[in-house]
């Protein structure tokens, strides 16, 4: 493996990892603060991708489609939280698993009814549909670099909100001791709705910006959900920092695993998870 090839893989791994971070951060926030295990998280990623595909066809512009799709995703998150999750906060994880599994069935089938079972693609949008020349025969897509930049910027925003704002303090306190925060007069109910909507919006957004890079297919949410579970287990539940490093580790492992040990590529991330569980059963950053 020469240097140019290596750096392309490095960039790919980084880009995949950063994308995973967007999804996993929503997942870990919802776990950490609301105590809810949301299996339908991956379905929201899929819906984000399909929304942007559909709206790009209708509006003729990827960026407009994204602008229109984000509010739709947020409203969908709000509806799910108010309608279904509201009753589940005080109940066992088993019921959350089952209810959100039921949601997956409904959302996956709704996708099939609305958009059918075909695989779709979205063209890489206008200013970024170029590639830069790395060496004579290797080039790198500008859009991938753009995705990386956006993900990093969002990671920065999340970090800033969590560390330096009043909201961040409340969220972190809520993750540590929910009852105490409630006792101090914070409206936890509103906080939950906010967190869930933000988490869902982050996932759907990840689906949207990933749409030009992947094939948009039924069931695309399921595999990403499980990968994100691995990320969260490695990083530690409720930890944004853990989600970040976990996502980078998994992104790199997936990319380099596929190149270096193709026969075991699909297992690499699980082997890493097993190793982490052996050493630190609560995750690296918990």
């Amino acid at each position, binding site marked *: 493996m020469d240097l140019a090839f290596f750096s392309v893989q490095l960039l790919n791994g980084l880009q995949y990892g950063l994308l995973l971070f967007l999804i996993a951060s929503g997942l870990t926030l919802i776990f950490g603060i609301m105590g809810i295990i949301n299996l339908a998280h991956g379905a929201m990623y899929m819906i984000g991708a399909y929304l942007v595909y559909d709206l790009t066809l209708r509006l003729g512009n990827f960026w407009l489609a994204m602008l229109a799709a984000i509010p739709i995703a947020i409203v969908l998150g709000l509806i799910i939280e108010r309608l279904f999750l509201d009753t589940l906060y005080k109940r*066992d994880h088993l019921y959350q698993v089952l209810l959100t599994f039921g949601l*997956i069935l409904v959302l996956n089938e709704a996708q099939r009814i609305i958009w059918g079972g075909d695989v779709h693609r979205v063209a890489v949008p206008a200013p970024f549909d170029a590639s830069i020349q790395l060496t004579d025969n290797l080039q790198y897509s500008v859009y991938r670099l753009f995705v990386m930049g956006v993900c990093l910027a969002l990671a920065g925003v999340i970090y800033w909100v969590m560390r330096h704002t009043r909201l961040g303090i409340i969220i972190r306190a809520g993750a540590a001791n929910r009852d105490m925060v409630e006792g101090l007069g914070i409206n936890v109910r509103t906080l939950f709705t906010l967190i869930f909507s933000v988490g869902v919006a982050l996932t759907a957004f990840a689906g949207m910006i990933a749409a030009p890079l992947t094939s948009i297919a039924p069931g695309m949410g399921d595999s990403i959900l499980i990968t994100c579970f*691995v990320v969260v287990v490695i990083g530690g539940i409720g930890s944004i920092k853990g989600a970040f490093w976990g996502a980078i580790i998994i992104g790199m492992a997936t990319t380099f695993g596929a190149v270096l040990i193709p026969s075991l590529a*699909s297992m690499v991330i699980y082997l890493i998870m097993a190793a982490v569980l052996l050493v630190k059963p609560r995750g690296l950053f918990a």
Partner: protein
Amino acid sequence: MLHRYPKRVAYIMLVLTALVAAFPLWGEAVFGNQANFMLEKLTLMLILALFAMSLDLLVGIVGLVSLGHALFFGLGAYTLALASPDFSPASMWWMLPLVMGVSACVGLIVGVLVIRTKGIFFIMTTLAFGQMLYYFISTSPLAGGTDGVFIMFRPSLTIGETSLVNLDNPYSFFYFCLGMLLIGFLFLRWLTRSYFGQVLDGIHDNEHRMQALGYATSGYKLVAFVIAGVMAAIAGMLAAMQYGFANPAQLGWHTSGEVLMMLILGGMGTIFGPILGAFAYEILLYIYEHATTHWPILMGLTIIIAVLVLPRGIAGLIIAPPWRSKRQTEPGTASEHGKAQVALSAKPTPQRKES
């Protein structure tokens, strides 16, 4: 756990068992030329009931919510498919111990890792390990990849030269599965009432207290995990015999989700509930599949509604019918109600009497 149920539970279960066992007598009269198809469906329900019951040991009795139980179901199926000789039937006398041995070993390895985690972590790690085997099998050329493996001959159950049960005959196989389910049920009933089961019950209630009392709770949980895995693998083996193939879908997490649905539909922690749940799930599936091609929507809504209004499942309805209790039990209080009963049964009663 509710060890003592009203008498009607036993009556209802006995009547249902008799009804199922007598299917060959009344099946043709009711279903006409569809009777053979229905017999196959019924056999599958018995197998799935065994599968759901094995999960109940983990979820209902110990309180460990596993979302990777299909790992063992698929493992049983693949062990059978890969160990069967191509041109002659395998013998059940070594196939069954092989399936149990393989699943026990895998259960031990996975169990050691996942038992270290709790709550949400346990759910996610069991799911991830299930998917690990799923990807391993579906990408491995040894196991036929995504196509799965066909089983040319069902194993035979013979003593010397004489056939004990002809498993190729759908009726004999039906009774064989019914027998396995009954054995599984009696085993779990015995297990939950034994000293070991009492400790599991205690862990479900308050693990810290059990630890403070000097119980090595991890060991107990690990053994329960392995036992549940072995039972699920036996169910998987029977399912592979029924289908005639082992398929990666049997390992996938949707299968794990479905078996959890059977558990919630039937009522967890009751051992007999999951049997009802498996039947209810398969009957609903049959109805929905015939009603619309978009049946997953109906199934999804059913499970959402079941979680919201019927958290204790069909078994809960039988044990404490809402029209009998004076206090109106709504979903929120229903689980509280259940908790109270659990707490009552966890009182320091003399254990010898129960076992």
